[in-house]
């Protein structure tokens, strides 16, 4: 085991896979000379040269499309997009092409492409740079979606992604890049897709945390234990497709209560999807409705106090878990000032 930052773990995965497999190439804006907008690819150009580590023009849709074509004909491209919002410019190649080619051509070709990008709020990057859009990719059949929350998973899942035959949307979190964790040094440390991580065991309530929210949920679980005597089981799904629903359902059958935490928007979110699945398959095991904690249903604002209340924090999760258990105070739980979701006049 080595202590590594999340960013370093990703770098190690890329380095190892570049060294292991000649077919792996990296493409992206400012990944080479600049070392990556978030320094994930630092040093890789120097080690592997311009043939394998390619700075690209600012042309998201085209870079991803080039990745699709190269993947169809034998390479294993890893494309970096600077921020998840920029992936919206590449939605055509990601959805109409990468996701559908294997099916559309009757399984004759595959698209072993990885598209990496960070998401997340907290750094005041405002409405064009801060969102959590995993639900948009989860929606698309043909794509796999990985959301690593720890340094070990960042490395292990990225290595799996590069070895995968399907296109993978690999979603990192900006706030996690600097976080350290124990990472196996083994060159073959891969974390297989479709295997959730039980971050903390507990018997009272299941909390599913997506991306950074797995980390926040773990902290909330400690507070629940210390201050409320509630033992929460925290599950990090690691990949949203394939989804390890079995682990989540088994936990719900044990705890009979479920809270789902994500940073993205509530409408059609990951939690909406998961709540439906849990409701369909474990209705009889639930003692209370599934609780969702999500980001606010607004474009991410720049101003610090607004940004702070636009995505979930530990107290929201604590409160949701208590509410699920019918232990929450029903009013006045907030320390802040309320904001109001809008609906039309009747």
């Amino acid at each position, binding site marked *: 085991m080595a202590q590594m930052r999340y960013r370093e773990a990703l770098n190690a995965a890329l380095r190892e896979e570049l060294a292991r497999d000649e077919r792996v190439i990296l493409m992206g*804006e400012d990944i080479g*000379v*600049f*070392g990556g*907008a*978030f*320094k994930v690819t630092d040093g890789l150009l120097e080690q592997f040269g311009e043939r394998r580590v390619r*700075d690209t023009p*600012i*042309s998201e849709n*085209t870079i991803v499309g080039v990745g699709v074509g190269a993947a169809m004909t034998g390479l294993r491209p890893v494309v970096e997009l600077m921020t998840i*919002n920029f992936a919206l*410019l590449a939605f055509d190649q990601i959805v109409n092409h990468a996701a559908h080619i294997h099916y559309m051509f009757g399984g004759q070709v595959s698209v072993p492409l990885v598209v990496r990008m*960070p998401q997340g709020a*907290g*750094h*005041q*990057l*405002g*409405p*064009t*740079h801060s969102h959590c859009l995993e639900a948009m990719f989860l929606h698309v059949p043909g794509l796999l979606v990985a959301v690593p929350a720890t340094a070990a998973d960042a490395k292990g899942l990225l290595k799996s992604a590069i070895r995968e035959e399907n296109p993978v949307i690999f979603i990192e979190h*900006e*706030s996690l*890049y*600097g*976080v350290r964790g124990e990472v196996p040094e083994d060159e073959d440390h891969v974390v297989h897709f479709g295997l959730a991580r039980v971050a903390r065991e507990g018997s009272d309530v299941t909390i599913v945390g997506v991306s950074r929210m797995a980390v926040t949920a773990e902290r909330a679980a400690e507070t629940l234990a210390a201050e409320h005597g509630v033992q929460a089981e925290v599950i990090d799904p690691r990949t949203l497709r394939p989804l390890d629903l079995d682990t989540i359902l088994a936990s719900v059958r044990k705890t009979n209560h479920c809270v789902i935490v994500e940073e993205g928007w*509530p*409408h059609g979110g990951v939690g909406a999807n998961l709540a439906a699945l849990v409701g369909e398959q474990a209705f009889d095991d639930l003692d209370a409705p599934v609780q969702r*904690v*999500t980001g*606010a*249903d*607004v*474009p991410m*604002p*720049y*101003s610090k*106090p*607004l940004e*702070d*209340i636009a995505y979930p*924090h*530990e107290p*929201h999760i604590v*409160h*949701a878990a208590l509410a699920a258990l019918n232990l929450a105070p029903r*009013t006045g*739980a*907030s320390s*802040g*000032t*309320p*904001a*109001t*979701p*809008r*609906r*039309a*006049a009747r």
Partner: protein
Amino acid sequence: MGTLPAPDLAREWLTTMTLIRRFEERAGEMYARAKIGGFLHLSIGEEATIVGSARALRDSDYLISTYRSHGHALVRGTPPEKVMAELFGRVDGCSGGRGGSMHMFDLANRFMGGYGIVGGNLPIAAGIALASDYRGSDEVTLCTFGDGASNQGTFGETLNLAALWKLPVVFMVTNNQFGMGTALRRHSAVTDLQRKGESLGVPGMRCDGMDILDTHAVLVEAVQRVREDRRPVLVEAVTYRFRGHSMADPEQYRTKAEVAHWQERDPIPAFAGLLVREGVIDAAEPQRIDAEALARVDAAVAFAEDSPFPAPESLYDDVYVLGPEVRGWYSMPTSEETANPPYAGAETGQSAEAMNDEIPQRLTHALAAGEDSGEGPAGDS
């Protein structure tokens, strides 16, 4: 090289360039003191390009820009107070604190915004020009973007459409030699950027973006052609940014000598010196102008400091234009919100009908920033 404008104009140009320079420097300081968050892109070095081009417009013409747009707001007449307040994330900012550095806006002055998505503003510019044409006006839209943006799909698509539909847009590529850390010759196959529109039916022009007279002269011609012929042109302004791409840029992709070389052509002392030599202003005037700019910027900072942060209950304001006759939810409460009964009807400053006692409220906990990591994202984009 163009000819000197009337003395009052010349003085105004120097004043505005100086204001932009001092404003940007102070913004950088305020960023270092954590008064400003997010990414901060300064246009130090590009002042002649900004002022020379914008002054070729009429007040009724439109300007649209990128995330590097404090100077564009200032040149159009947005008070420095409102630009600084936006950087501070305060209610009196020109975007109400919602947009920040990358998203300035001033409708009254026909500054149609800074946009955080590279290449995102080009089609919007064409749409603004379409509306001008449709309304039968002779307004022109000046659309500025970077050398890096000229590789985005929207560049080719918009230039073609604007030429095809004869839309009155001046596309101005601000060639500051880099898209982030990638030098022009490493990101664009054609480095003679004024020619990039030729095959799309958009003729090219070039100006020396370090020289306000040349920039102004070329842009006056471009604007006139566009206004009269009702067809787009592409102007390349050759300039240089003296600072990093944004504040987090270690600038390892260029040498200090290269920066120093371009700094010798700093557009502000160059123009000031010319005006003194030509007897337009006396030798002490540049210093007076500078002192005024510094005072202006001090006032802007003081104003921004005093302006309040947006109230938490304003979070959901302006996501939609609320229709009084429309039924149903616009924004969705989560079960976390549903689980928490409403606070007594907070006044939100929006349509009173939208308020309802049954509306679930959002829990708010303003926690310290960066709670999940020991450091910020150390990013730059």
